[in-house]
């Protein structure tokens, strides 16, 4: 009666092979990285009902031509200098109402960070890579200033605070606390980045 010993054991030696096969399939199809990028808000299509008059000195004009050359405030500027220039403009505090500004208080430049507007204009032929670099530098200028203020008021970097606030894994209580701080810093240097329609002229 050989049967009494029970059913023979199934050979599990090929289990590893099967698992390897599946493993390799998932390895190949996996894309682990989360996407990252520059967040921007587009302006609504309806024009504002009341025309706002903005003083020329409160606008920092950045124009990119089709060769990737940069005109910042009517001067030909190197891309590497754009961040410093934008920061100087935003941080100027020309009319003396800005208590936290450390700029030169040049009366010819912006009155107050809350009034300062950066206007970005590009040609249809501009390379997307150049455009992103310029966007990056302008966002960087805002972030640098916000970091400085956050460091002064709360002792940590604004970008870290914002990242933690946006992270879905952060606890709600921490989020509520951060929300106010983030809002406060954002109000000190509101991101006013206007994107004009692209010019069609060559």
């Amino acid at each position, binding site marked *: 009666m050989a049967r009494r010993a029970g059913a023979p054991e199934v050979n*599990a030696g090929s*289990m*590893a092979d099967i*698992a*390897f096969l*599946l*493993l390799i399939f*998932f*390895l190949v*199809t*996996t*894309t*682990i990285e*989360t*996407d*990252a*990028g*520059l*967040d*921007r*808000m*587009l*302006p*609504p*299509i309806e024009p504002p009902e009341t025309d706002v008059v903005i003083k020329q000195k409160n606008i920092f004009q950045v124009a990119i031509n089709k060769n*990737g050359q940069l005109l910042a405030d009517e001067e030909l500027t190197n*891309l*590497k200098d754009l961040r410093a220039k934008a920061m100087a403009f935003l941080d100027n505090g020309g009319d003396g109402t800005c208590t936290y500004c450390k700029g030169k208080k040049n009366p010819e430049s912006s009155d107050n960070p809350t009034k300062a507007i950066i206007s970005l204009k*590009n*040609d*249809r*032929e*501009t*390379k*997307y*890579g*150049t*455009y*992103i*670099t310029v*966007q*990056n*530098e302008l*966002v*960087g200028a805002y*972030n640098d200033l916000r970091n400085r203020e956050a460091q002064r008021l709360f002792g940590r970097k604004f*970008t870290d605070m*914002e*990242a933690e606030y*946006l*992270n*879905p894994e952060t606890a709600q209580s921490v989020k509520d606390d951060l929300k106010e701080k983030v809002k406060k810093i954002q109000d000190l240097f509101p991101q006013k980045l206007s*994107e004009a*329609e*692209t010019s069609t002229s060559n």
Partner: protein
Amino acid sequence: MSKFSKKKSGELPPVSTASLPDIVFMLLFFFMTVTVMKDSSLKVENVLPNASEVKKLEKKDRVIYIYVGKPTQEFQKVFGTEPKIQLNDKFASPSEVGDYILAERAKKSQELQNVLTTALKVDKNANMGLISDIKLELRKVNALKVNYTTYEGDAFRNLQ
């Protein structure tokens, strides 16, 4: 004395591979859980530009993707080498972007419809003209939140 010599004479026992399936399964489950299947195959070249001031794009269910770039080699005969827009699995003209966004928005659940982000995955050699057309279409359908998807890195490398 004989006791000790006996032990040494024995051959090295083979390494047990019984736990190999367990290890492999562990890896397998890891990759199964982190996998996100690609929902559309790319028909355009898509080398994203670099940027340093990036924000993470959390919550993939609230993102609508738009790809822009030169058609890949196999499609160049039919579609030429000018940068094109890819929506889902097919090439599209800028005027179709609005309808696509509305259709994608309708697919999402009610509470997500107002918090959608449009991720623009644009090849760094594309021209801004096409992007401006897309942006205009997005503004028409009130999809104002956009994310220019980039790699994390030094932004000045885009210029080379």
